[in-house]
């Protein structure tokens, strides 16, 4: 009932949710119930890979919300993703306890290695799961709020805003590379053991993380769809199309932009938090400006302003990346660049735009 109310006649959304539902059933069965000798068996490696794609898809949905609908091309969403990831990573680090190389019950290995005596204050509380989860949304949300408040109030738009978001993520990358920051320097946080008492390397935990990622993607999709279909969504599209008109109708444009941006950052943070336990590491490389640009490419390839296009793009481009970097790694970046140029020139509405060429879209 609720689904019908939110999705309405969003065909792409119905297809996406059905696929996610099928995956949520098929993947655990094929991984856990089908014996490894069977050709139908799905390896845990593949499950983790799919889980990773789901996190990227969630991130792409978040980016599509601000870019496709609100017209804010953020090239710094990698920062929110990485901050969410670091918050999760800090919890996982604290869970290691005495099992680390140095066996210190409180300090993570890298701090012992740096000869630190006490836990820095900003690591307090991260041994509590609820606190870490709270930080997963609070830190990216707060950063987006402060950044957005300053930028949108000063009416920074277009390419200038994109450049500023690049600078933001680059600055964070440089900061996190420093050992003195207390986030593990360029090695980042890794060597995680378990989450909430479940062994991170067991198949069951992997499947659990996969299912949570699937669920979060579906939930985020529905939340974004709900926003887009509400009057708020129409105001946001109106801002994208003619900001002045919207302002002279009495809407405080900067507040609308700000809240959409913050919501998108929250989703990105959640995506990062789900990503880290699955790949087992978070390091400052995630802040790299190139990463954030790649995210924009996922959305552009899939098709902006459709949400499900972003999911499609994230899956296809990342599958391409996995495939190419395994088969011919030196070609991948050229392929990515070429793909972006080709999509911009020939498919301005992305791959899903091909399918719905004749239908009106927002």
């Amino acid at each position, binding site marked *: 009932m609720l689904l019908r109310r939110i999705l309405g006649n969003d065909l792409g959304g119905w297809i996406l949710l059905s696929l996610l539902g099928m995956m949520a059933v098929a993947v655990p069965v094929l991984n856990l119930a089908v014996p490894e000798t069977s050709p139908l068996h799905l390896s845990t490696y593949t499950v983790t890979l799919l889980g990773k794609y789901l996190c990227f898809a969630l991130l792409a949905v978040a980016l599509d919300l601000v870019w496709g609908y609100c017209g804010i091309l953020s090239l710094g969403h990698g920062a929110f993703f990485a901050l969410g990831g670091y918050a999760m990573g800090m919890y996982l680090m604290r869970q290691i306890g005495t099992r680390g190389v140095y066996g210190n019950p409180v300090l993570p290995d890298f701090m012992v290695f740096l000869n630190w005596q006490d836990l820095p204050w900003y690591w307090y509380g991260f041994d509590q799961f609820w606190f870490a989860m709270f930080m997963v949304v609070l830190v990216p949300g707060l950063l987006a709020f402060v950044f957005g408040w300053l930028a949108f109030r000063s009416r920074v738009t277009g390419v200038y805003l994109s450049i500023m978001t690049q600078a933001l993520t680059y600055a964070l990358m440089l900061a996190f590379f420093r050992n003195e920051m207390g986030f593990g320097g360029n090695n980042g946080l890794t060597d995680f053991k378990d989450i909430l008492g479940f062994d991170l390397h067991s198949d069951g935990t992997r499947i659990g993380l996969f299912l949570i990622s699937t669920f979060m993607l579906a939930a985020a999709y529905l939340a974004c769809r709900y*926003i887009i279909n*509400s*009057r*708020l969504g*129409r*105001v946001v*599209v*109106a801002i994208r*199309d*003619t900001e*002045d*008109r*919207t*302002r*002279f*109708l*009495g*809407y*405080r*444009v900067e*507040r*609308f932009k700000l*809240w959409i941006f913050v919501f998108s950052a929250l989703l990105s943070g959640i995506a990062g938090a789900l990503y880290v336990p699955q790949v087992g590491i978070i390091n400052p490389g995630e802040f790299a400006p190139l990463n954030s640009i790649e995210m924009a490419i996922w959305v552009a390839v899939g098709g902006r302003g459709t949400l499900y296009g972003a999911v499609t793009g994230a899956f296809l481009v990342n599958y391409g990346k996995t495939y190419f970097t395994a088969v011919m790694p030196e070609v991948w970046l050229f392929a990515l660049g070429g793909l972006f140029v080709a999509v911009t020139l020939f498919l301005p509405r992305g791959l899903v735009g091909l399918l719905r060429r004749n239908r*009106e879209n*927002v």
Partner: protein
Amino acid sequence: MVVRRRQEFIRRDRVFGFLVPASERFLRLDTTHGPILYLEDLTVSFDGFKALNGLSLYIDEGELRCIIGPNGAGKTTMMDVITGKTRPDEGEVTFGQQIDLLDLNEPEIAMAGIGRKFQRPTVFEHHTVFHNLELAMHTNKAVWHTLVATLSGEERDRILEVLLTVGLEGHRDRRAGLLSHGQKQWLEIGMLLMQNPRVLLVDEPVAGMTPQETERTAELLTGLAGKHSVVVVEHDMDFVRSIARKVTVLHEGSVLAEGSMDHVQNDPRVIEVYLGD
């Protein structure tokens, strides 16, 4: 800015804005003295060029005023100042007796009751005609409210009423981007009406319209006067003659002449400006 502030504090004939509760500043529009909009001694300069030069202008409640003038006379700048897009270097803009528009930003001015139509028709091309009007509707426009807002029966009726007024009832569910140029102009006027404004600022409403469309627009605007004050900036003299009761001629940022169309047309200074010497 500093000069303006100082002038503000030595004036004794008014209540300071900060002494009036915020809610009242918006609600009470006092037009008991006749004019609804007071522009006094407005000066705006861009890099030394004075777009407005001591412009003073009063718009009465319910009147239909046409503003004409050659290019660069300051017509659009004047609208920018009224709607909060441009801050004047000097001068005052008062809405009714009390509302100092220079204290408000664009959305606040719009909510206070001043609607503006742009020179180029500006509608939300990806939304349907109906949704364009819905977005313009005078209601709570805070972020959270728009997320959960649903249309009440009354609001729906109001939108349908405006659709009829601007003659777009047959295009209700069409995307605004698919409308003709003239229809977009009417839609934008309809959007202004949805805001329940007291003053409508209309910038070149008939530019690029066919004669039939122009005639229809003239009817529309004259029909609105009385209930609203309508200020029309226009180049098309025939159009101005067909609707105007009172005309103001701007030249080089200040008022050159004001009065009926016949009066203004026979003014030697106006003839000089328009026809050259």
